[in-house]
Protein backbone atom coordinates (compact mmCIF):
# COMPACT_ATOMS: atom_id res chain seq x y z
CA UNK A 1 0.00 0.00 0.00
CA UNK A 2 1.32 3.42 -0.84
CA UNK A 3 0.25 6.92 0.14
CA UNK A 4 1.52 10.44 0.80
CA UNK A 5 4.99 11.16 2.18
CA UNK A 6 5.71 10.92 5.88
CA UNK A 7 8.66 11.97 8.02
CA UNK A 8 9.60 9.18 10.42
CA UNK A 9 12.21 8.18 12.93
CA UNK A 10 13.25 4.71 11.86
CA UNK A 11 15.18 2.42 14.19
CA UNK A 12 18.19 0.58 12.87
CA UNK A 13 17.39 -2.97 14.00
CA UNK A 14 19.76 -5.10 11.95
CA UNK A 15 23.03 -4.69 10.12
CA UNK A 16 24.20 -7.30 7.65
CA UNK A 17 27.80 -6.93 6.57
CA UNK A 18 28.68 -8.78 3.37
CA UNK A 19 32.29 -7.98 2.52
CA UNK A 20 32.42 -4.22 2.03
CA UNK A 21 28.65 -3.93 1.64
CA UNK A 22 26.29 -3.09 4.48
CA UNK A 23 22.57 -3.78 4.47
CA UNK A 24 20.58 -1.99 7.14
CA UNK A 25 17.12 -3.02 8.21
CA UNK A 26 15.04 -0.15 9.55
CA UNK A 27 12.04 -0.67 11.76
CA UNK A 28 9.70 1.96 10.38
CA UNK A 29 6.06 0.78 10.23
CA UNK A 30 4.54 4.07 9.06
CA UNK A 31 6.86 4.45 6.12
CA UNK A 32 7.00 0.72 5.29
CA UNK A 33 3.21 0.64 4.99
CA UNK A 34 3.29 3.32 2.30
CA UNK A 35 6.40 2.28 0.45
CA UNK A 36 6.22 0.63 -2.96
CA UNK A 37 8.90 -0.93 -5.15
CA UNK A 38 10.94 1.71 -7.01
CA UNK A 39 10.08 4.59 -4.69
CA UNK A 40 12.83 6.43 -2.86
CA UNK A 41 13.40 7.15 0.81
CA UNK A 42 15.41 10.21 1.84
CA UNK A 43 17.57 9.55 4.88
CA UNK A 44 19.31 12.15 7.00
CA UNK A 45 22.81 10.99 7.82
CA UNK A 46 25.74 12.31 9.70
CA UNK A 47 26.45 14.43 12.67
CA UNK A 48 24.83 17.77 13.28
CA UNK A 49 24.05 19.00 9.80
CA UNK A 50 26.96 17.41 7.95
CA UNK A 51 26.28 16.31 5.30
CA UNK A 52 23.40 18.77 4.90
CA UNK A 53 21.43 16.96 2.20
CA UNK A 54 19.56 13.72 2.74
CA UNK A 55 20.80 10.60 0.98
CA UNK A 56 18.35 8.87 -1.36
CA UNK A 57 17.82 5.12 -1.15
CA UNK A 58 15.76 2.75 -3.22
CA UNK A 59 14.98 0.00 -0.69
CA UNK A 60 16.00 -3.53 -1.62
CA UNK A 61 13.37 -5.14 0.61
CA UNK A 62 10.06 -3.93 1.99
CA UNK A 63 8.25 -5.74 4.81
CA UNK A 64 5.12 -4.83 6.79
CA UNK A 65 6.98 -2.83 9.42
CA UNK A 66 10.49 -2.43 8.09
CA UNK A 67 12.56 -1.85 4.99
CA UNK A 68 16.16 -2.45 4.01
CA UNK A 69 18.70 -0.10 2.50
CA UNK A 70 21.92 -1.23 0.85
CA UNK A 71 25.25 0.59 1.10
CA UNK A 72 27.72 -0.42 -1.58
CA UNK A 73 31.35 0.56 -0.99
CA UNK A 74 31.90 4.24 -1.89
CA UNK A 75 33.48 7.40 -0.52
CA UNK A 76 30.30 9.26 0.42
CA UNK A 77 30.40 10.84 3.87
CA UNK A 78 26.73 10.18 4.57
CA UNK A 79 27.16 6.52 3.69
CA UNK A 80 30.28 6.32 5.86
CA UNK A 81 28.21 7.56 8.79
CA UNK A 82 25.55 4.93 8.13
CA UNK A 83 28.23 2.23 8.09
CA UNK A 84 29.21 3.22 11.62
CA UNK A 85 25.79 3.96 13.15
CA UNK A 86 25.22 1.51 16.00
CA UNK A 87 22.20 -0.76 16.12
CA UNK A 88 19.37 1.03 17.87
CA UNK A 89 20.21 4.35 16.19
CA UNK A 90 17.24 6.42 15.10
CA UNK A 91 17.33 7.65 11.53
CA UNK A 92 15.24 10.55 10.26
CA UNK A 93 13.52 9.41 7.07
CA UNK A 94 11.29 11.12 4.52
CA UNK A 95 9.30 9.18 1.96
CA UNK A 96 8.08 7.50 -0.05
CA UNK A 97 9.15 9.76 -2.92
CA UNK A 98 7.47 9.65 -6.28
CA UNK A 99 5.92 6.93 -8.38
CA UNK A 100 7.34 3.41 -8.31
CA UNK A 101 6.93 0.30 -10.40
CA UNK A 102 3.37 -0.81 -11.19
CA UNK A 103 2.36 -4.28 -12.25
CA UNK A 104 -0.64 -3.69 -14.52
CA UNK A 105 -3.68 -5.96 -14.31
CA UNK A 106 -3.61 -8.90 -16.68
CA UNK A 107 0.17 -9.10 -16.84
CA UNK A 108 1.49 -12.69 -16.63
CA UNK A 109 5.22 -12.61 -17.39
CA UNK A 110 7.46 -10.04 -15.78
CA UNK A 111 11.00 -9.44 -16.97
CA UNK A 112 13.27 -7.53 -14.59
CA UNK A 113 16.46 -6.13 -16.12
CA UNK A 114 19.20 -4.66 -14.00
CA UNK A 115 22.59 -3.11 -14.53
CA UNK A 116 25.28 -3.17 -11.83
CA UNK A 117 24.34 -2.07 -8.33
CA UNK A 118 21.01 -0.74 -9.58
CA UNK A 119 19.79 -4.31 -10.11
CA UNK A 120 19.28 -4.55 -6.34
CA UNK A 121 16.54 -1.92 -6.52
CA UNK A 122 14.49 -4.41 -8.56
CA UNK A 123 14.28 -6.91 -5.70
CA UNK A 124 11.03 -5.54 -4.20
CA UNK A 125 9.18 -5.61 -7.53
CA UNK A 126 10.51 -9.10 -8.25
CA UNK A 127 9.31 -10.29 -4.84
CA UNK A 128 5.94 -8.58 -5.33
CA UNK A 129 5.43 -10.14 -8.80
CA UNK A 130 6.34 -13.55 -7.44
CA UNK A 131 3.89 -13.14 -4.58
CA UNK A 132 1.16 -12.42 -7.16
CA UNK A 133 2.17 -15.75 -8.74
CA UNK A 134 3.34 -14.12 -11.93
CA UNK A 135 6.14 -15.70 -13.96
CA UNK A 136 9.26 -13.69 -13.21
CA UNK A 137 12.67 -13.60 -14.84
CA UNK A 138 15.51 -11.44 -13.58
CA UNK A 139 18.47 -10.75 -15.85
CA UNK A 140 21.32 -8.69 -14.49
CA UNK A 141 24.55 -7.42 -15.97
CA UNK A 142 27.21 -6.61 -13.39
CA UNK A 143 30.74 -5.30 -13.59
CA UNK A 144 32.17 -7.49 -10.85
CA UNK A 145 30.67 -10.62 -9.24
CA UNK A 146 30.48 -8.74 -5.94
CA UNK A 147 27.67 -6.56 -7.24
CA UNK A 148 25.56 -9.59 -8.18
CA UNK A 149 22.43 -10.59 -6.29
CA UNK A 150 23.09 -14.11 -4.92
CA UNK A 151 20.46 -16.57 -6.24
CA UNK A 152 19.49 -17.44 -2.68
CA UNK A 153 18.15 -13.90 -2.24
CA UNK A 154 15.48 -14.49 -4.90
CA UNK A 155 12.15 -16.30 -4.55
CA UNK A 156 12.56 -19.93 -5.68
CA UNK A 157 10.32 -19.56 -8.73
CA UNK A 158 12.25 -16.63 -10.22
CA UNK A 159 14.37 -17.48 -13.23
CA UNK A 160 17.77 -15.77 -12.98
CA UNK A 161 20.31 -14.85 -15.65
CA UNK A 162 23.52 -13.16 -14.62
CA UNK A 163 26.38 -11.86 -16.74
CA UNK A 164 29.61 -10.32 -15.59
CA UNK A 165 31.14 -7.66 -17.75
CA UNK A 166 34.68 -6.98 -16.51
CA UNK A 167 35.83 -4.15 -18.73
CA UNK A 168 33.53 -4.87 -21.67
CA UNK A 169 29.83 -4.14 -22.03
CA UNK A 170 26.64 -5.57 -23.38
CA UNK A 171 26.87 -9.24 -22.45
CA UNK A 172 23.18 -9.23 -21.51
CA UNK A 173 22.58 -8.62 -25.22
CA UNK A 174 22.90 -12.37 -25.75
CA UNK A 175 19.66 -12.90 -23.82
CA UNK A 176 17.55 -10.21 -25.46
CA UNK A 177 16.26 -12.49 -28.23
CA UNK A 178 15.08 -15.08 -25.72
CA UNK A 179 13.68 -12.82 -23.01
CA UNK A 180 12.13 -9.80 -24.67
CA UNK A 181 9.55 -11.60 -26.82
CA UNK A 182 8.56 -13.67 -23.77
CA UNK A 183 7.78 -10.79 -21.43
CA UNK A 184 4.45 -8.99 -20.96
CA UNK A 185 6.12 -6.23 -19.05
CA UNK A 186 9.70 -5.09 -18.35
CA UNK A 187 10.90 -3.37 -15.19
CA UNK A 188 14.46 -2.06 -15.42
CA UNK A 189 17.05 -0.27 -13.32
CA UNK A 190 20.37 0.99 -14.63
CA UNK A 191 22.02 3.90 -16.43
CA UNK A 192 20.56 5.94 -19.26
CA UNK A 193 22.97 4.16 -21.61
CA UNK A 194 21.52 0.85 -20.45
CA UNK A 195 18.00 2.08 -21.22
CA UNK A 196 19.07 3.18 -24.70
CA UNK A 197 20.47 -0.31 -25.36
CA UNK A 198 17.26 -1.81 -23.98
CA UNK A 199 15.16 0.37 -26.30
CA UNK A 200 17.22 -0.68 -29.29
CA UNK A 201 16.84 -4.33 -28.33
CA UNK A 202 13.07 -3.99 -27.97
CA UNK A 203 12.85 -2.38 -31.39
CA UNK A 204 14.92 -5.24 -32.78
CA UNK A 205 13.06 -8.11 -31.13
CA UNK A 206 9.54 -6.70 -30.78
CA UNK A 207 9.64 -4.16 -33.66
CA UNK A 208 8.04 -1.36 -31.65
CA UNK A 209 8.23 -0.05 -28.10
CA UNK A 210 4.66 0.06 -26.89
CA UNK A 211 3.88 2.54 -24.12
CA UNK A 212 3.25 0.46 -21.02
CA UNK A 213 5.66 -2.32 -21.99
CA UNK A 214 8.79 -1.17 -20.14
CA UNK A 215 9.17 0.81 -16.90
CA UNK A 216 12.58 2.20 -15.99
CA UNK A 217 13.97 3.75 -12.82
CA UNK A 218 15.48 7.15 -13.59
CA UNK A 219 18.80 7.51 -11.74
CA UNK A 220 18.39 10.61 -9.51
CA UNK A 221 20.58 11.17 -6.48
CA UNK A 222 19.76 14.17 -4.30
CA UNK A 223 16.07 14.75 -3.89
CA UNK A 224 13.88 17.10 -1.87
CA UNK A 225 10.94 14.95 -2.86
CA UNK A 226 8.40 17.78 -2.71
CA UNK A 227 8.80 19.39 -6.12
CA UNK A 228 10.21 22.60 -4.67
CA UNK A 229 13.91 22.45 -5.44
CA UNK A 230 13.88 21.71 -9.19
CA UNK A 231 17.21 19.94 -8.79
CA UNK A 232 15.91 16.61 -10.06
CA UNK A 233 14.67 17.71 -13.45
CA UNK A 234 15.37 15.64 -16.53
CA UNK A 235 14.37 15.96 -20.14
CA UNK A 236 11.80 13.19 -20.23
CA UNK A 237 8.23 12.69 -21.39
CA UNK A 238 8.53 15.49 -23.91
CA UNK A 239 9.61 18.15 -21.49
CA UNK A 240 11.77 19.10 -18.55
CA UNK A 241 10.09 17.19 -15.73
CA UNK A 242 10.61 16.84 -12.02
CA UNK A 243 11.80 13.28 -11.54
CA UNK A 244 10.65 13.25 -7.91
CA UNK A 245 7.02 13.88 -8.92
CA UNK A 246 6.70 12.24 -12.34
CA UNK A 247 9.22 9.47 -11.58
CA UNK A 248 11.54 8.06 -10.48
CA UNK A 249 9.92 5.25 -12.50
CA UNK A 250 9.05 6.31 -16.05
CA UNK A 251 7.76 4.59 -19.09
CA UNK A 252 10.74 3.71 -21.28
CA UNK A 253 9.21 5.68 -24.15
CA UNK A 254 9.36 8.81 -22.02
CA UNK A 255 13.07 8.38 -21.28
CA UNK A 256 14.51 7.42 -24.67
CA UNK A 257 13.38 9.64 -27.49
CA UNK A 258 11.67 7.65 -30.19
CA UNK A 259 13.29 7.89 -33.57
Amino acid sequence: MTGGMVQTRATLVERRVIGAVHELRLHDPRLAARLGAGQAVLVRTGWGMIPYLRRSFYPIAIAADSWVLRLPPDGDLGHAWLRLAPEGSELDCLGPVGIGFRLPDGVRRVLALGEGEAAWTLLPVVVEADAFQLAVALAAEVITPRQAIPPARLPAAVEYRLTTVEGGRGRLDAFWAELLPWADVVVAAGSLAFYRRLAEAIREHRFVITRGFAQVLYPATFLCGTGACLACVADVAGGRRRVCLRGPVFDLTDVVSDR
Partner: protein
Amino acid sequence: MPIELAPRNKRGLPLRSPVMAGSGAVGYGDCWPPGLDPRAFGAIVTAGVTMRPRSGREPPRLAELPLGFLLATGDHNPGYRRVVAQYAELWRRLGVPVILSLLGAEPGDRAWMATRLEEDDPGIAGIELPVPEDVNLGEASAFIAAVRRATTLPLLVRLPATRAAHLAETCVVAGADALVIGTPPPVVYPAPDGTPLEGPLAGPTALPFTLRGLRAVAALHLDVPLIASGGIQKAEDALLCLRWGAVAVQIRSLVWTDPAAAMHVAESVHAAFAADSPEG
Protein backbone atom coordinates in the same frame (compact mmCIF):
# COMPACT_ATOMS: atom_id res chain seq x y z
CA MET B 1 -0.29 42.64 17.84
CA PRO B 2 0.40 41.40 14.30
CA ILE B 3 3.61 42.25 12.51
CA GLU B 4 3.11 44.80 9.77
CA LEU B 5 5.47 44.29 6.83
CA ALA B 6 4.22 47.28 4.87
CA PRO B 7 3.34 50.05 7.34
CA ARG B 8 3.64 52.76 4.66
CA ASN B 9 1.45 50.92 2.17
CA LYS B 10 -2.31 51.55 2.12
CA ARG B 11 -3.08 47.84 1.74
CA GLY B 12 -0.66 46.81 4.45
CA LEU B 13 0.73 43.30 4.91
CA PRO B 14 0.04 42.03 8.42
CA LEU B 15 1.58 38.70 9.51
CA ARG B 16 0.30 36.49 12.29
CA SER B 17 3.74 35.06 12.94
CA PRO B 18 7.27 36.29 12.24
CA VAL B 19 8.34 33.09 10.45
CA MET B 20 7.78 33.06 6.70
CA ALA B 21 8.42 30.29 4.18
CA GLY B 22 10.87 31.99 1.81
CA SER B 23 11.15 31.77 -1.95
CA GLY B 24 12.09 28.24 -3.02
CA ALA B 25 10.67 26.59 0.09
CA VAL B 26 7.20 25.55 -1.06
CA GLY B 27 7.15 26.10 -4.82
CA TYR B 28 4.09 28.18 -5.74
CA GLY B 29 2.40 27.10 -2.54
CA ASP B 30 1.85 23.66 -4.04
CA CYS B 31 4.90 21.81 -2.73
CA TRP B 32 4.32 20.89 0.89
CA PRO B 33 6.44 18.31 2.62
CA PRO B 34 4.64 16.05 5.11
CA GLY B 35 3.61 17.49 8.45
CA LEU B 36 3.84 21.14 7.45
CA ASP B 37 0.80 23.32 8.01
CA PRO B 38 0.74 26.44 5.80
CA ARG B 39 -0.97 28.32 8.63
CA ALA B 40 2.06 27.83 10.84
CA PHE B 41 3.77 30.52 8.76
CA GLY B 42 3.23 34.24 8.77
CA ALA B 43 3.34 34.26 4.97
CA ILE B 44 4.84 32.32 2.10
CA VAL B 45 6.89 33.63 -0.79
CA THR B 46 6.54 31.74 -4.06
CA ALA B 47 9.37 30.53 -6.27
CA GLY B 48 10.34 33.18 -8.80
CA VAL B 49 8.26 33.84 -11.90
CA THR B 50 9.46 35.36 -15.15
CA MET B 51 7.30 36.93 -17.82
CA ARG B 52 7.82 34.03 -20.21
CA PRO B 53 8.37 30.35 -19.39
CA ARG B 54 11.97 29.36 -18.85
CA SER B 55 13.26 25.83 -19.03
CA GLY B 56 16.22 26.74 -16.92
CA ARG B 57 19.62 25.20 -16.69
CA GLU B 58 20.36 21.73 -18.05
CA PRO B 59 21.04 19.22 -15.30
CA PRO B 60 23.17 18.88 -13.21
CA ARG B 61 21.83 21.71 -11.09
CA LEU B 62 22.88 20.78 -7.59
CA ALA B 63 26.25 20.68 -5.84
CA GLU B 64 26.55 19.70 -2.24
CA LEU B 65 28.92 22.00 -0.36
CA PRO B 66 30.66 21.62 2.95
CA LEU B 67 27.58 22.05 5.20
CA GLY B 68 25.29 23.36 2.51
CA PHE B 69 24.59 23.27 -1.18
CA LEU B 70 24.16 25.39 -4.25
CA LEU B 71 21.30 25.11 -6.63
CA ALA B 72 21.54 26.50 -10.15
CA THR B 73 18.05 26.24 -11.62
CA GLY B 74 18.54 29.04 -14.14
CA ASP B 75 15.19 30.52 -13.12
CA HIS B 76 13.33 27.47 -14.39
CA ASN B 77 9.63 28.30 -14.15
CA PRO B 78 6.42 27.94 -16.13
CA GLY B 79 6.07 31.67 -16.76
CA TYR B 80 3.71 34.34 -15.41
CA ARG B 81 0.53 33.37 -17.28
CA ARG B 82 0.63 29.70 -16.43
CA VAL B 83 1.56 30.27 -12.80
CA VAL B 84 -1.27 32.72 -12.24
CA ALA B 85 -3.77 30.55 -14.12
CA GLN B 86 -2.70 27.42 -12.26
CA TYR B 87 -2.28 28.66 -8.70
CA ALA B 88 -4.59 31.68 -8.13
CA GLU B 89 -7.29 29.49 -6.67
CA LEU B 90 -4.84 27.70 -4.40
CA TRP B 91 -3.51 31.03 -3.12
CA ARG B 92 -6.98 32.19 -2.16
CA ARG B 93 -7.71 29.14 -0.04
CA LEU B 94 -4.28 28.51 1.49
CA GLY B 95 -5.10 30.47 4.66
CA VAL B 96 -1.81 32.35 4.66
CA PRO B 97 -0.71 35.51 2.80
CA VAL B 98 1.04 34.63 -0.47
CA ILE B 99 3.82 36.87 -1.75
CA LEU B 100 4.73 36.44 -5.40
CA SER B 101 8.41 36.57 -6.32
CA LEU B 102 9.01 38.34 -9.62
CA LEU B 103 12.15 37.72 -11.66
CA GLY B 104 13.08 39.59 -14.76
CA ALA B 105 15.33 39.07 -17.71
CA GLU B 106 14.64 42.51 -19.19
CA PRO B 107 14.19 45.69 -17.12
CA GLY B 108 10.55 46.06 -18.21
CA ASP B 109 9.50 42.46 -17.41
CA ARG B 110 8.79 42.94 -13.76
CA ALA B 111 6.81 46.13 -14.29
CA TRP B 112 4.79 44.31 -16.95
CA MET B 113 3.99 41.49 -14.51
CA ALA B 114 3.16 43.97 -11.74
CA THR B 115 0.72 45.74 -14.07
CA ARG B 116 -0.89 42.43 -15.02
CA LEU B 117 -1.22 41.51 -11.33
CA GLU B 118 -3.41 44.57 -10.75
CA GLU B 119 -5.77 43.29 -13.46
CA ASP B 120 -5.55 39.53 -12.84
CA ASP B 121 -5.86 39.97 -9.08
CA PRO B 122 -4.90 36.38 -8.24
CA GLY B 123 -5.27 36.82 -4.50
CA ILE B 124 -1.71 37.67 -3.54
CA ALA B 125 -0.78 39.85 -0.59
CA GLY B 126 2.44 41.31 -1.91
CA ILE B 127 5.39 41.10 -4.26
CA GLU B 128 8.98 40.12 -3.54
CA LEU B 129 11.51 41.61 -5.90
CA PRO B 130 15.02 40.11 -5.81
CA VAL B 131 17.71 42.62 -6.71
CA PRO B 132 20.35 40.91 -8.88
CA GLU B 133 23.83 40.53 -7.39
CA ASP B 134 25.61 42.97 -9.66
CA VAL B 135 23.26 45.91 -10.26
CA ASN B 136 24.38 49.43 -9.50
CA LEU B 137 22.37 51.99 -7.58
CA GLY B 138 20.84 53.55 -10.70
CA GLU B 139 19.66 50.25 -12.11
CA ALA B 140 18.21 49.12 -8.79
CA SER B 141 16.40 52.40 -8.35
CA ALA B 142 14.98 52.35 -11.89
CA PHE B 143 13.51 48.88 -11.85
CA ILE B 144 12.05 49.16 -8.34
CA ALA B 145 10.48 52.52 -9.18
CA ALA B 146 8.97 51.02 -12.34
CA VAL B 147 7.33 48.22 -10.36
CA ARG B 148 6.24 50.71 -7.70
CA ARG B 149 4.43 52.79 -10.34
CA ALA B 150 2.77 49.68 -11.77
CA THR B 151 1.19 48.34 -8.58
CA THR B 152 -0.19 49.31 -5.22
CA LEU B 153 0.71 45.92 -3.74
CA PRO B 154 3.19 45.84 -0.84
CA LEU B 155 6.70 45.54 -2.25
CA LEU B 156 9.36 43.50 -0.47
CA VAL B 157 12.77 44.11 -2.02
CA ARG B 158 15.27 41.29 -1.56
CA LEU B 159 18.86 42.51 -1.44
CA PRO B 160 22.07 40.59 -2.07
CA ALA B 161 23.38 40.02 1.47
CA THR B 162 26.91 41.25 0.81
CA ARG B 163 25.74 44.51 -0.83
CA ALA B 164 22.66 45.08 1.29
CA ALA B 165 23.91 48.17 3.14
CA HIS B 166 25.12 49.74 -0.09
CA LEU B 167 21.76 49.31 -1.84
CA ALA B 168 19.27 49.66 1.01
CA GLU B 169 18.51 53.35 1.09
CA THR B 170 18.18 53.65 -2.68
CA CYS B 171 15.67 50.81 -2.68
CA VAL B 172 13.58 52.41 0.04
CA VAL B 173 13.56 55.73 -1.76
CA ALA B 174 12.52 53.94 -4.96
CA GLY B 175 9.50 52.49 -3.19
CA ALA B 176 10.32 49.34 -1.19
CA ASP B 177 7.87 48.76 1.66
CA ALA B 178 10.23 46.31 3.37
CA LEU B 179 13.71 44.90 2.77
CA VAL B 180 14.61 41.23 2.70
CA ILE B 181 18.22 40.56 3.71
CA GLY B 182 19.11 38.80 1.70
CA THR B 183 20.28 36.63 -1.13
CA PRO B 184 23.49 34.85 -0.05
CA PRO B 185 26.54 35.51 -2.24
CA PRO B 186 27.17 33.32 -5.29
CA VAL B 187 29.69 30.50 -5.10
CA VAL B 188 31.07 27.93 -7.51
CA TYR B 189 31.50 24.24 -6.82
CA PRO B 190 31.75 21.07 -8.86
CA ALA B 191 28.58 18.98 -9.27
CA PRO B 192 28.98 15.24 -8.62
CA ASP B 193 30.04 14.76 -12.26
CA GLY B 194 32.66 17.55 -12.04
CA THR B 195 30.68 20.25 -13.90
CA PRO B 196 31.33 23.65 -12.27
CA LEU B 197 28.03 25.09 -11.04
CA GLU B 198 27.41 28.67 -9.93
CA GLY B 199 24.63 29.73 -7.61
CA PRO B 200 23.90 31.40 -4.29
CA LEU B 201 25.24 29.72 -1.17
CA ALA B 202 22.47 27.84 0.61
CA GLY B 203 22.15 26.05 3.91
CA PRO B 204 23.48 26.81 7.40
CA THR B 205 26.67 28.45 6.14
CA ALA B 206 24.64 31.31 4.66
CA LEU B 207 23.62 32.63 8.09
CA PRO B 208 26.80 34.62 8.84
CA PHE B 209 26.24 36.56 5.59
CA THR B 210 22.64 37.24 6.52
CA LEU B 211 23.71 38.48 9.95
CA ARG B 212 26.31 40.81 8.48
CA GLY B 213 23.84 42.30 6.00
CA LEU B 214 21.15 42.60 8.64
CA ARG B 215 23.32 44.44 11.16
CA ALA B 216 24.69 46.78 8.54
CA VAL B 217 21.22 47.70 7.25
CA ALA B 218 19.75 47.94 10.75
CA ALA B 219 22.47 50.46 11.57
CA LEU B 220 21.12 52.74 8.81
CA HIS B 221 17.76 53.20 10.65
CA LEU B 222 15.80 53.38 7.43
CA ASP B 223 12.39 53.06 9.06
CA VAL B 224 11.20 50.12 6.96
CA PRO B 225 10.72 46.60 8.29
CA LEU B 226 13.66 44.23 7.75
CA ILE B 227 13.19 40.54 7.03
CA ALA B 228 16.12 38.17 7.51
CA SER B 229 16.56 35.34 5.02
CA GLY B 230 19.34 32.88 4.24
CA GLY B 231 20.67 30.04 6.32
CA ILE B 232 18.06 30.14 9.08
CA GLN B 233 17.90 26.59 10.42
CA LYS B 234 17.12 26.80 14.11
CA ALA B 235 14.84 28.75 16.40
CA GLU B 236 17.95 30.39 17.90
CA ASP B 237 19.00 31.61 14.44
CA ALA B 238 15.59 33.18 13.96
CA LEU B 239 15.52 34.75 17.43
CA LEU B 240 19.02 36.18 16.93
CA CYS B 241 17.83 37.85 13.71
CA LEU B 242 14.77 39.25 15.47
CA ARG B 243 17.02 40.58 18.25
CA TRP B 244 19.39 42.12 15.75
CA GLY B 245 16.76 44.17 13.94
CA ALA B 246 14.54 41.93 11.81
CA VAL B 247 10.76 41.92 12.30
CA ALA B 248 10.38 38.60 10.47
CA VAL B 249 12.52 35.80 9.06
CA GLN B 250 12.26 33.46 6.11
CA ILE B 251 13.18 29.81 6.26
CA ARG B 252 13.82 28.10 2.97
CA SER B 253 15.75 24.90 2.42
CA LEU B 254 15.01 23.69 5.96
CA VAL B 255 11.40 23.30 4.85
CA TRP B 256 12.32 20.35 2.63
CA THR B 257 15.50 19.07 4.28
CA ASP B 258 13.76 18.71 7.64
CA PRO B 259 10.05 19.53 7.61
CA ALA B 260 9.63 18.65 11.29
CA ALA B 261 12.42 21.04 12.24
CA ALA B 262 10.88 23.75 10.03
CA MET B 263 7.55 23.29 11.78
CA HIS B 264 9.29 23.48 15.15
CA VAL B 265 11.03 26.74 14.19
CA ALA B 266 7.75 28.23 12.99
CA GLU B 267 5.86 27.23 16.11
CA SER B 268 8.46 28.00 18.75
CA VAL B 269 9.42 31.38 17.31
CA HIS B 270 5.77 32.29 16.97
CA ALA B 271 5.23 31.30 20.59
CA ALA B 272 8.23 33.34 21.77
CA PHE B 273 6.93 36.28 19.75
CA ALA B 274 3.38 35.96 21.09
CA ALA B 275 4.70 35.78 24.66
CA ASP B 276 6.62 39.02 24.10
CA SER B 277 3.72 40.82 22.56
CA PRO B 278 1.21 42.57 24.88
CA GLU B 279 -1.89 41.41 23.02
CA GLY B 280 -0.66 37.83 22.77
